[in-house]
């Protein structure tokens, strides 16, 4: 019983929420991208870039809010590369994603060297202030989920996004600019991933550390799939994965449980594979995701 209380208490749930937020927001970003038909495995890199820019802007301006804005803005700029390469130049979207992850990993450390003359950790910067028990990014992150759901299902833009990702030629035939919708969505995904990165670097913490996203972009991708490309689905999956991370910490050292931490760390990935295999209701991606759109071809 005591063990139970150690694992499940209020703090566990606020910890879950804090850990889930970056996954959630990045997953929502991925959702916009994939719903419009562009696979985005560069969430990790976009988050990392966002985390870095947030710290840099906060360092030079002294304002964490500007840091957050900078991360969102630069996340969008960074995603624009993915958009150009994969939408305009019909590149393989997975390859482009791999390249962007590499670019973010190399670029941030290179710039750490150039800007701060260090390889590992940036100087401490002004972080976002607390609003009650949490940082603003937590509330904003939850708000983003709500707004995204509204946009996707209750606005003309959302309808167009869903149409473009399922059947771009149908959208094209009624005069929708497929490429424009995709550009907007991919850039949006970068902005949201940038936000998620900023949450880590100047929300949870106040520094940038080399590789500090530590695979969260890929867990976000898993959450997106596990949530079947729905905003609330992604939110639920993120909370679930965040919860696993929270209890993994709490299970450590409780001898009675005896599960090595490594095996708990695998759970989100295994669950995602199971979800894809259809054991708990098949996860089916938008029909046209991954396919470059070529006008006139079908």
């Amino acid at each position, binding site marked *: 019983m005591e063990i139970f209380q150690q694992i499940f208490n209020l703090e566990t749930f606020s910890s879950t929420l804090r850990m889930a937020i970056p996954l959630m927001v990045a997953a929502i970003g991925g959702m916009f991208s994939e719903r419009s038909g562009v696979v985005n*495995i560069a969430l990790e890199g976009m988050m990392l870039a966002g985390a870095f820019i947030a710290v840099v802007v906060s360092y030079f301006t002294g304002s964490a809010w500007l840091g957050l804005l900078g991360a969102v803005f630069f996340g969008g700029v960074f995603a624009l590369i993915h958009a150009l390469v994969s939408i305009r130049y019909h590149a393989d979207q997975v390859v482009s994603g791999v390249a962007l992850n*590499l*670019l973010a990993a190399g670029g941030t450390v*290179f710039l750490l060297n150039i800007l701060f003359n260090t390889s590992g950790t940036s100087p401490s910067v002004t972080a976002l202030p607390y609003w009650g028990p949490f940082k603003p990014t937590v509330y904003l992150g939850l708000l983003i989920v709500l707004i995204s759901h509204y946009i996707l299902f209750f606005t003309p833009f959302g309808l167009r996004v869903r149409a473009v990702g399922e059947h771009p030629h149908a959208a094209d035939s009624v005069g929708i600019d497929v490429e424009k919708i995709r550009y907007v969505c991919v850039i949006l995904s970068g902005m949201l991933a940038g936000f998620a990165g900023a949450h880590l670097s100047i929300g949870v913490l106040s520094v940038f550390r080399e590789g500090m996203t530590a695979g969260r972009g890929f867990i976000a991708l898993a959450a997106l799939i596990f949530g079947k490309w729905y905003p609330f689905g992604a939110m639920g999956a993120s909370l679930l994965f965040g919860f696993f991370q929270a209890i993994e910490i709490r299970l450590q050292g409780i001898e009675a449980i005896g599960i090595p931490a490594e095996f708990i760390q695998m759970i989100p*990935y*295994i669950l995602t*594979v199971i979800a*894809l*295999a259809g054991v708990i209701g098949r996860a089916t991606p938008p029909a046209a995701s991954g396919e470059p759109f070529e006008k006139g*071809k079908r």
Partner: protein
Amino acid sequence: MAGDMNSKELLKEISIPLLAILSSFIIGTLIVIASGYDPIATYGALLQGAFGGLNSIADTLLAATPLIFTGLTVAFAYRCGLFNIGGEGQLLVGGLTAAWIGTFKGVPMIIHLPLTLLAAMVAGALWVAIPAILKAKLGVHEVITTIMFNYISYSLVAYFSLKVLAKPGSIQTPDIEPSAYLWRFSNVLDMYSYLNIGFLIGLIVLFVIYYLLWKTTIGYEIRAVGISPDAAEYGGISAARNIILAMLISGALAGLGGAERAMGLFHNYRNGFSAEYGFTGIAVALLGRNHPLGIFLAALLFGALSNGQDYMNMLAGVPVDLVTILQAVIILFVAADLLFRRVLALKPEGRKGE
């Protein structure tokens, strides 16, 4: 090598990667200048590190060796219409397996060496088996599942290497037995490099894969499935069977890459075992146009870059991450080859449709 390619097409094929490499180096130069370094010294050091002497050249080949395997990993699956992005995990699992089997004592080399190589291949193949089966039987997209398996492997390999196999007080597994060593060239040549016959195995595998893909019925079937699974089914070729086969071979190649690191370079499994070879393999395959010859050249290029980067850092003081940036930009340019095709007014590659 490719019989069905005339010289004009060949020129077109190689012009895009060359342009991509050139453009990337131009961008690299701009970065170097803007960061306040001397580009001539930078690239000079890079070149010296990569090719300045027997030892450097051997080190470049050593760095290229795992990329040959992981490049083939990606390319072989790609020829069957699959994107195996899990080469990293397969290499780690294969490498750990080789490092474990290699420690078996008292086995004569003639058995031990091939057994260890084989075990690594089997491990790599097994690690991709679930994504392969899910793809073949349920159509689950292999990109996501192989990414997920990468992350599963990181935890699993960490657990087994550190908590099960590692020698006490150490974060590496015990050294393998000499009977499982891949023979090193430094045994007869006066150099430091750990270049070993793993490189030659790589060359042989390049040829074997080429032969398999273009000269045998297995390759005929795998490529047919890659181009058109429906047409293949029509022709009595089981798409599911070939997808699984191609994925298993692909995973085995990655496992072999891990074996070379364990048996030739490190003689054990340790932290930092793979310098993201699996991901660089994607770039190598892409740049090499998924053709064994192209992969060989691309692996040499990336090997030279990753070998030369240390000298670039040591001599010119430029952070090694510049090379990571260069690699990313090369991939972006090769992937966005339409850019160059438009600039050069070449016709785009026929994809699907009419």
